[in-house]
């Protein structure tokens, strides 16, 4: 997935390059989110087999889910701010 059209220049100046990589990071973010949030599927859970390792405590689970959540929100907000900043800088110049 790329915004490049066939007529677009092959090499970009540094700022445009940076902006594209920020967009790449933005696009990757939900995939990272899915991976992190689907990890609990592999956690040992209570009652499946008596020999299983002890299940993860609920407090840890809550902490994990919410920490991931907050990190994703922060990442999204920071990316938005940087991309928006570059847009504003582009408009200004």
């Amino acid at each position: 997935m790329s915004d490049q059209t066939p007529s677009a220049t092959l090499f970009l100046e540094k700022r445009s390059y940076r902006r594209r990589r920020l967009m790449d990071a933005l696009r990757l973010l939900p995939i990272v989110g899915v991976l992190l949030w689907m990890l609990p599927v592999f956690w040992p859970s209570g009652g499946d087999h008596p020999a299983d390792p002890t299940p993860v405590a609920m407090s840890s689970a809550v902490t994990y889910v919410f920490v991931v959540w907050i990190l994703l929100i922060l990442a999204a907000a920071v990316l938005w701010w940087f991309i928006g900043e570059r847009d504003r800088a582009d408009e200004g110049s």
Partner: protein
Amino acid sequence: MISVNQLLGVSLVYVAFLFAIAFFAERASMRGKGSWLRSPTVYTLSLSIYCTAWTFYGAVGYAARSGMEFVTIYLGPSLVMIGWWWVLRKLVRIGRAQRATSVADLISARYGKSNLLAIVVTVMAVIGVTPYIALQLQSVTLSLSIFSETGQPDSLSQQTAAFWVAGGLVVFTVLFGTRNLNANERHDGVVIAIAVEAVVKLVALLAVGIFVVWGIAGGIGPMMERIDNSSIGEWSMDRSRWAALTMLSAAAFLALPRMFQVMVVENEDERHLQIASWAFPLYLMLMSLFVVPIAVVGLDILPAGSNPDLFVLTVPLAEGQGGLATLSFLGGFSSATSMVIVATLALSTMVSNHVVMPVWLSRQAEGAQVSGDVRNVVILARRASILMIIFFGYIYYRLSGGGAALAAIGLISFVGVAQFLPAMLGGIFWRGATRWGALAGLLVGFAVWVFCSLLPSFGPDAILSTAVFEQGIGGLRWLRPQALFGIEGIDPTVHAMVWSLSLNVAVFVGVSLVTFPTPLERLQGAQFVNVFDHSTQARGWDAALATSEDLMIMAQRILGPADALSLFRAEAQRQGLTGHLPEPTQGFLQTLERELAGSVGSATAHAMISQLVGGTSVSVEDLMAVADESAQILEYSNRLEAKSAELSRTARQLREANQKLTALSVQKDAFLGQISHELRTPMTSIRSFSEILRDTDKLDQADKTKYASIIHGETIRLTRLLDDLLDLSVLENGQVSLNLEQGNLNDVIAQAVLSAGGARSTQLRINHVRSDLDVPLSTDLDRLRQVFINLITNAQKYCNAPEPSLTVDILQHGGGLQVVFHDNGTLIPPEARALIFEKFSRINDKDGSGAGLGLAICREIMARLGGDITYEPRADGNAFIVHLPGQAALAAQ
């Protein structure tokens, strides 16, 4: 303790407050001071109608029953928002470019503005959302019953309460949503009201949460200990549900009609979406932050058997916090009302645009031009739809008994609306998706959902009998509603979701692959999929026939007189015209159609304008028809061209024939003069000499003999002329009988030379080459000789060379023979060549002895003998070629 009546009073004041906010917001918006109403914050808060009473009450109950599973309902939407670049960006752009007013409008527009598809989506949406509405009724009723239990036990039965709540919601929604018909289907007042409600419910839940963590548990650390020591203290998870519900909630977030309304239809600026991409997950995170603590504390301090769905209310009540409980009640009330308002508004828009208006328009025989206010019909249709939808929710609530856990009901709705997702995503990412594919996929997915999820939700023996649950339909064990295809042991929700969605996608893709889209579908498909390449409207109107007045009348009825007038006046001003009627240019018609689409949906607006503009609308289908027509015209003109070439060829032939005829006629006239002269000359001398013989007595014998000889000679000449004419007419009529003989060609030529020379001695030297060749032939030798004699005498007569000579030659040509008579005289002039074989044609006839029949006779004879005679100009004279057919020569060999 707060009484139910106090609570109702608080609720009414709250509603009045919301109504006032909505009213002033709309006032401000109309006065053009509403920019603050369309800020990213309001947009983000309006998205919070995703969090309904189910969230507010149900999440805690869900957590108390199943631990962390409740959070999946928020993880899905968070992922969709964080990944806005993938899907939402495109969805919002398409929705804005196409002026989509609802999910049904979007899907119908993508698949060639198919109203059938819109109706199917509308019906599915109404049925799919009904359990959700019932859920809101149930939550409000339950929450009211808590207060009545603690206050006045028998004052309020749950059924009556649900009825009054439903009635109140109808009034509320009608007042909010259908006060007027906005040109762009945006509801500034409603949006600001739900934004306020979003704040109220967040604050309420946070307040209860903070009270629980710091007021009851005593801080974060002790709270965590309490969580680990509770009955849900261990990670216990149905793994399939964790993944499936995250996916399901993401799908429902995209496909829910009310989410489409706030996310796409009410979107003012695409940049708001970027801000909401992190702000809305933040809202969701805050909404779920205290769910587990509240559930744990509720399980701890409340007696066993308390309904965990109401912990948000009962925990503060149990701790004697009446004010907090009231705030919490208002939070739940806000959740329920905002969801019902937006959901029913979205659905009523769909019902009125795709079901009521098309039916109404088609029943109006005179079409869109009839008098009467369409606005009234639209508003009436919407109000009726609102009533109907909430009534359905009430019926569902009554039927399902109101006993099921809130979360279970919500998930049924989610699976139902998620059926739109394949058609939606397929439509915006895959150009190959077709109308029939979308329709088939939707219907199959919907049918599976009804069978596996909706009908079982009423419980065994309510609609589906226990036998069906256990044995399947008609005893077919692979058709059990919770174990399709014999696969048992799957969680019912996951089961319904996996089967309905996978069959939906399979049928959608399969049917799309084998069907062929209509031209309009292909155009719309390209516009949807490549929306970022060209976000413009491609279809247009040729306005030649649409009069501005008709358009004005129609627009007034939909947009309202004032709005329509100002729209038309602005356009007229833009065009530089005075007065209020602009020229119906294509651009103006497109603008108008978009304005109308905002009120009545794109399909209906298109239909209305096309009724006025009539056959001149330039849809793709029309263009295709035009293209077909021009292809036909091109073909026709090609054919005409060919025909005209043929005609001009014929005309040229006719002209030639005519010239020939004219020349012939001239010749005939000349000949008739000639022949009468020919006949008269001998006749005159015959008469004169016979008169001399009769009247003169003293004639001596010598004179008598001389005169009689003259008379005899003249009669012979006359006879010969008449013989020739007779001969020709016999030949021409085909009455001649051929006398076939064996002979030698050279003998025939020699005889002819002899008889010609004998008849008239001239100085013509005849050179008979190859005279010793033995050329046997079988034909009518006398007739052939006649031809040769004719040609030789012609040469004797007309060859004007100083030393006239005639070469007679025999050539083998193809299968036949050619006898060439080649003289050294002057060439026959070109204009005469075409006529030499015609009757009465005489060229250079100086002595007037010929009748011009010789060559005509020759040609007739040769035609009878199966041969031909042709003329060829040669460098040194004229050549007459007698062609003898093959069998004449071969027969003798």
